[in-house]
């Protein structure tokens, strides 16, 4: 992981007792994102022999995607023997090639694949061919640059934990995969739910990116964070179209987003028992719009990137706020309500006034008004252009604040509890402890109808709201809600344990936080999903990083400056990391005797 290289090495003994040593390298270049490299070194130890290399390419070298993008690959091979170095015949690409090997001598086969698309160049096929041919001639440099790029990334992004090797490994695994998936050079792409490590979820982009992964990039790799947010900006038109189609103003982002930003959420799901069910997430998981806005604001607050705010971020904040003003309806109680939604807890569909959705919508409306005010004061001329571009009426920010003020939140001032949605407290309260241990999610065990009539929730919902809006929620309310909802959470989503670890740590319950942290870490490393081949869980990995940084380390940006309130597990001797805040690198070190935050040059 340190060098971003997969090494495989083994000795093979055949039936004739011939022993052959094989060493293989595989990488996808971080320094040159068009290149993929594969090398095999073969050494027959005790017998000269003839081998056949079967390395034919499978699949076409040129493909056209559904959106019309041409994707072209070119292959270049090279063979190095003790006496010569040559380009093998075309047979190595198209089929098997024989090689005569002498005992004790090492033979190396190198392969470079270059990949270009019609988004990169007018002739991706020719560009790929030229690039592959050139790269294979100087492979050592290609590999060196890749390794250097990874070492530089690690210097910026590594997080060191002493005293808990398993936690350290889990964190580096998370950082490695997050870094692998991000591309600051292309702001028309984002990170799918499984990153680039598997084909499950078809590369679709969810709130996982904005809420779970983005904080890592914002604080350690802001260029990558900016590119991810620009993807949301480039897909704003599709979000506007979706809102308009459903009769709303502003931007309603796709629950499942691909290259154009159109909602690609399937309409039906086939359950494992063969039952076909209509899927409502695309229509009802409307919190996605506030989630995107939250990412924008989070990035701007941490980087101070006003250029981004003026060129793209303000559009997103304002259009999402507009969505909420048209979505929320004022009712007889003089409060605004948002009915018929799904919150992060997807076990309960078509609910009214989901606390997370309403809480985030309220935040979205307020922050849009705040940003409008700030831009009009600090950047009057650009603000006039934004106002003209978006057709902002003079009284519109006031309307956003009015809706936010009167939006129903579900908070019971007497108990300090948010009701997760209207009627939630009347549902059957099922003791989850009776289902321990279990090997399946609760909705599978109880069935769809029973789970909908129960208080069992799929993942952090009110708890997620506490995490995101920590500084807006009083301490006693945070604790009361965590204490109420945590025992009712079935953790049917892989996103859930990490957030519970984070909030438990911030509340000072380090032992509970550590249990959830381990649970989150095991999702990929212990394959508790039974579907590792589909790829890693990028959102979980982002959540794992947040659990350490915002939970155990207690990093917070109250009053627009970094501070921390550490809750380290007792076995962790120290934690150290670097992060960027307003263009400056900060070193956070939490030794046993106390804590230190120091600023360094960017």
């Amino acid at each position, binding site marked *: 992981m340190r060098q971003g290289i997969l090494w495989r090495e083994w000795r093979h003994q055949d039936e004739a007792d011939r022993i052959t040593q094989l060493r293989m390298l595989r990488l996808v270049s971080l320094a040159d994102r068009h290149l993929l490299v594969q090398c095999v070194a073969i050494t027959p130890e005790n017998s000269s022999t003839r081998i056949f290399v079967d390395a034919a390419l499978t699949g076409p070298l040129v493909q056209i995607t559904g959106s019309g993008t041409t994707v072209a690959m070119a292959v270049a091979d090279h063979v190095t023997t003790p006496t010569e170095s040559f380009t093998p015949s075309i047979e190595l690409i198209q089929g098997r090639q024989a090689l005569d090997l002498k005992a004790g001598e090492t033979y190396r086969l190198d392969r470079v694949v270059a990949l270009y698309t019609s988004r990169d160049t007018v002739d991706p096929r020719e560009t790929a061919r030229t690039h592959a041919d050139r790269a294979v001639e100087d492979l050592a440099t290609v590999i060196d640059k890749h390794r250097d790029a990874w070492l530089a990334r690690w210097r910026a992004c590594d997080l060191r934990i002493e005293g808990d090797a398993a936690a350290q490994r889990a964190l580096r695994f998370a950082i490695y995969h997050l870094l692998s998936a991000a591309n600051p050079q292309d702001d028309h792409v984002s990170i799918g*739910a499984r990153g680039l490590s598997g084909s*499950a*979820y*078809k590369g*679709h982009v*969810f709130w996982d990116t904005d809420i779970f992964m983005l904080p890592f990039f914002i604080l350690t790799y802001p260029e990558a964070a900016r590119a991810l947010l620009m993807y949301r900006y480039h897909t704003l038109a599709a979000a506007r179209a979706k809102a308009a189609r459903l009769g709303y103003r502003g931007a309603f982002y796709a629950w*499942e987003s691909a290259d154009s930003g159109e909602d690609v*959420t*399937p309409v*039906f*799901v*086939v*359950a*494992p*028992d*063969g039952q076909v069910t209509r*899927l409502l*997430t695309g229509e009802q998981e409307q919190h996605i719009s506030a989630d995107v806005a939250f990412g924008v604001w989070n990035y701007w607050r941490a980087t101070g990137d006003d250029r981004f705010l003026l060129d793209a971020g303000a559009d997103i904040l304002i259009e999402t706020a507009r969505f909420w003003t048209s979505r929320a309806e004022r009712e007889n109680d003089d409060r605004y309500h948002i009915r018929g939604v799904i919150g992060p807890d997807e076990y309960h569909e078509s609910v009214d006034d989901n606390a997370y959705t309403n809480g985030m919508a309220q935040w979205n409306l307020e922050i849009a008004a705040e940003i409008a005010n700030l831009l009009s004061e600090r950047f009057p001329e650009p603000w006039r252009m934004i106002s003209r571009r978006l057709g902002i009426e003079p009284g519109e920010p006031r309307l956003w604040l009015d809706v936010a003020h009167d939006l129903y939140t579900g908070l019971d001032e007497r108990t300090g509890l948010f009701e997760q949605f209207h009627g939630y407290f009347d549902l059957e309260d099922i003791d989850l402890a009776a*289902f*321990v*241990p*279990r*090997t*399946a*999610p609760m*909705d*599978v*065990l109880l069935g769809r109808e029973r789970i909908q009539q129960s208080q069992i929730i799929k993942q952090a919902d009110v708890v997620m709201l506490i995490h995101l809006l920590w500084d807006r929620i009083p301490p006693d309310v945070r604790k009361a809600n965590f204490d109420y909802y945590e025992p009712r959470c079935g*953790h*049917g*989503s*892989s*996103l*859930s344990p990490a957030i519970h670890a984070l909030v438990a740590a911030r509340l000072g319950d380090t032992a509970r936080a550590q249990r959830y942290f381990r649970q989150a870490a095991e*999702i990929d490393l212990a*394959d*508790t*999903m*039974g*579907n*590792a*081949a*589909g790829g890693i*869980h990028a959102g979980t990995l982002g959540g794992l990083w947040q659990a350490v940084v915002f939970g155990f380390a207690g990093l917070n940006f109250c009053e627009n400056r970094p501070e921390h309130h550490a809750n380290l597990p007792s076995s962790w001797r120290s934690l150290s990391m670097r992060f960027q805040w307003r263009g400056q690198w900060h070193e956070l070190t939490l030794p046993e005797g106390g804590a230190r935050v120091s600023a360094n040059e960017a």
Partner: protein
Amino acid sequence: MSEPVILVPLDGTKQALAALPVAKVLADIERAALYILHVGERQLPAEELRNHLRAGAPVLDGLSIDVRIGAPAAEIAQVASAINPLAIVMCKHSGTERGKMLGRTATKVLHDAPCPVVLVPPERGAIPWHLHHVLVPHDGTPTTSAALGPAAELAERGRAELLVVHVTGVGAAPTEPGSFTTPRYVDQPQHEWPAWAGEFVKRLASICQLGHVQVRVFLAHGETAAEIQRLSEKQSTDLIVLAWRGRWEAPRAATLKNIVRDARCPIMVVRA
């Protein structure tokens, strides 16, 4: 004996004849001959034997019948050892053992058989049987995988669909090394289930040849035998294939016993 055979023990009761339609279809699929075995108390002339077996001429036409004298289970085991059949197909129990999960002879045959044993419920009677759906319960352990190879081969040769049901629920995950994991989390079911089922089938394919057989994976939850039975009924299963470690005493083989007791379709038992 070089020609593949399927051994069909008949005890002379009407119930035992339920094995014949199943055995005939299996023999057609496997291109095997039927080997009818009757163990009685004395040798009978051919015509008397047919009457004794309660089988009309069309059913046993062209088939030779091996008649032996002695203890039925021991004789069946001896013949099976000699002819090495592809399978033994027999009724679960005789008429006099009605209400029993498994008859005394069938139980002993199950223990001693050198090959898979197909147990046919006597209630089926002599109605024709076909093989369209083969159900294999799989708890994720390598032990249950033992049933998969024979089931897949049979399904492919019989052009039947292979249904694999993974029963999960409350309780610890299997601890047997190499066990498959069930999905502890389902983030987005529209992506999760196809991905998990696809990977499950790929993992199965790595431990047995699935060939071109059509495979469908089902995830069920609850009491294992009841769920297998429920799915079997719902999917109109023609044959359930189960792996068995060879231990019958309580509390062993609880799932197998329950399925043998309740299933309305034949059950093939494969030793793990």
